[in-house]
């Protein structure tokens, strides 16, 4: 298994190079001139040219690419065009808050999602099932933006239990993590329910019951464990998305995460920041997929990686 993991990790190199080339091309293909934007309204052509030279954008694109990659390989991702801070620092400052929020939200999502999914599968076609599934439908459909502002109004303005915005203590996590968690929980619940229903009809479940295994053990050990594969897949995907930062929730709760950084960087055509962030997101996705694949083997011993 470790050999397999190592082999998968070596695949990262061509992936990251591919991503870097693509992103480099894309950010330059979309219209918009960073020098013009930075120079601002009312800037003269001379000022714009000065900014362009300052940013090194007067060089040939190929030269710019190798310049960026050459430095990136040595761990220097350049300076943000807008804030003049090193890109690594700019991202580093926001990576941890994003990881924290994504992790806490995923925990919320997993706890709510799997519990609701299991209950509604086991109690199929009862009001337990209907409540859980209507809840999931609402969870998927509700705009997170609206939910966030409503929660804020209720729990921060009307009843002053949590801070309206900000980052720092556990209290700051409650509303954003719940908002994000509910959205993710809904799809996890639906996947769990579907997978559980399939498994509950299998012969080995009947066998387990026939030999007198406790019903709770049947459900959680024999059924749920075998139903986990699609659930782990969807959970991994959701986690990947959350790690990319969540623009809406970040801006509503003033969370200093990667999502707002990316949006600002794209709007300002801050090339070094966009490039580096995209490579980071690609890296995160590859790693999460790898972890998910390895988890398959843990969940189902029949799966082997050689």
């Amino acid at each position, binding site marked *: 298994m470790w050999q397999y993991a190592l082999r998968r990790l070596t695949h990262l190199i061509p992936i990251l190079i591919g991503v870097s080339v693509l992103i480099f091309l894309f950010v330059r293909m*979309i*219209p*918009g*001139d960073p020098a*013009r*934007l930075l*120079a601002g*309204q*009312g*800037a*003269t*052509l*001379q*000022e714009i040219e*000065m*900014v362009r030279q*300052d940013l090194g954008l007067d060089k040939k694109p190929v030269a710019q690419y190798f310049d960026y990659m050459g430095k990136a390989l040595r761990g220097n991702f350049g300076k943000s065009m*807008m804030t*003049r*801070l090193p890109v690594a620092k700019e991202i580093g*400052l*926001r990576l*941890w*808050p994003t990881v*924290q929020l994504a*992790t*806490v939200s*995923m*925990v919320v999502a*997993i706890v709510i999602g*799997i519990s609701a999914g299991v209950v509604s599968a086991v109690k199929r076609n009862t009001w337990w099932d209907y409540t859980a599934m209507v809840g999931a439908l609402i969870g998927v459909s509700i705009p997170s933006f609206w939910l966030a*502002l409503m929660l804020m109004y209720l729990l*921060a*303005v009307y009843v*002053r*239990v949590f*801070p*309206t*915005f*900000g*980052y*720092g*203590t*556990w*209290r*700051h996590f409650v509303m954003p993590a719940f908002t994000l968690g509910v959205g993710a929980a809904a799809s996890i619940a639906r996947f769990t329910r579907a997978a559980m229903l399939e498994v509950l009809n299998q012969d080995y479940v009947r066998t387990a019951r026939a030999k007198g295994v406790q019903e709770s*053990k049947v459900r*959680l*050990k024999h059924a*749920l*464990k075998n139903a*986990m594969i699609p659930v782990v897949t969807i959970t991994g995907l959701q986690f990947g998305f959350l790690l990319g930062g969540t623009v809406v929730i970040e*801006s*509503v709760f*003033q969370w*200093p995460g990667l999502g707002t950084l990316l949006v*600002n960087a794209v*709007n*300002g055509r801050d090339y070094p920041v966009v490039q580096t962030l995209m490579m980071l997101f690609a890296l995160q996705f590859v790693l999460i997929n790898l972890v998910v694949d390895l988890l398959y083997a*843990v969940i189902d011993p029949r799966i082997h990686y050689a």
Partner: protein
Amino acid sequence: MINTWFRFLAVAMILGLVAGCGGGAATPKTDSATPAPAQQPATPKKTAAVAATAGDAIVLDPHDTNDNLSYGIENTIYEGLVGFDKDMKVIPVLAESYKASDDAMTFEFKLRKGVKFHTGEPLNAAAVKKSFDRVRDPNNKLRRYSLFGPITSIETPDENTVVFKLSEPFGAMLFNFAHPAGKVIAPSGVDKGKDELARNPKYGTGPFMFKEWVQNDHITVTKNPGYWNAAGAAKVESITFRAITEAGTRTNGLKAGDLDWVLPVPPVDAIALKTDPKVKINSAPSIYVFYIAYNMTKKPFSEPKVRQALNLAVDREAIRKGVLRGFAEPVTSYLAPNVGFYVKQADEIKRDVEKAKQLLKEAGYDGTEFELYSANSTERKDLAAAIIQQLSEAGFKVKSVPMDNASLSTNIWTQDKDHIKVQMYLGGWSTSTGDADWAIRPLLYGKQAPPVGYNMGFYDSPKANKLIEDGLRTADPAKRAPIYAELQKVLWEEQPWVPLYSSQNIWGTGANVDGAYVQGDGIVNYNGIYFK
């Protein structure tokens, strides 16, 4: 065998706890936003103000700034030789007095004595020279270079006198000195350079001193105990600027009391907040004029009757009252009323659809569809939609083309006289120097058409061009006034735009907060903020 599900759950919960609490020590705490105790027994007067801004500052180097948000924060730390008062009139700040030569080529400032920078260095002629030498040197590649580029030499005849010499007459130069970029930076700061000044603005003379900047979270400034001007000294111990992009969050923060001062407040929220006793909503006219520019070099807009029809087809009153909920002023000249040399030309143009239709018929407009370019913010798109609806009632066919700023600017600046892309453009402009020249020249001077400037309609009127040039030949207000009066008349007659309205700045404060205000140019003056 232990159930996998429970193991999984346990691991997930531990992870969550670690992530949720582990970072606490290493990361900045945001005390200001934690809820206050439910009961407050006669709380002592607050001394730390929290102001919300619509985003994070970009850099805090006045010479390298071009956004109002950053300027507002810089204004608490840095001061210029001259500045603006509440009504955008130029007033002396670090200079005691100033005078301009008749030919508008020499500007002399007498410095105030006894002023010290936050670093302890004294403010003297050499320091002022060093600061302005920095911004006017093209090799430093500073974004506000062009404001001070016309300076050819700076002389310091004595400790407290600075004389600026220009390469050519520039009557509006005093306004450039008053511009928020005309700040004096301490010599040690100039030596440290661009990266230091961008992030650590510790080199001013202002009523507040820089304390910290936590990226994307907050910026804090604290009272300067040694401020030179007792009358203008800070009335609070500190101001924290919180970057909050979402308008709904700013509104909730204000209601909850987590925020003392909020700009901007959207018109809809402003109306809702007016009934809240804990909140005060303020509005004041800006010096922004919103307009539609159209390409004057090509048919049909080269035809005066079509331009007249456009102007008559728009229902300005409906836009002000409906789209902007009353937070706008009628436009009565190409200058906003608070800009110097403003002369009212007429009442707001009234809508006359029948006459517009008639004029279009006479001009022979064939119903060709035009694209109206604008920014893609919700507010701007709503405005464009309302205007297009009104124009269509008079027989114009117009399509809205909203774009993000970067794409919009590329479309505008890759065109020239022979390659027109943008036929109609909806935008707003304020003169960042507060002077009439910068309100008109970048937008309506013949030599400022793209790709050079912002004259989106390629308007090139010999009459207007000459008056624009004349206005800069002298710094004497008595001589400039009649020139700009005439210029406004010419513009009103030739109609290079559909002038729409002049906007208002809307800001909200706690009911117990006062003293800070928004200038006409949209820049906040936080210095006087206090709690009642």
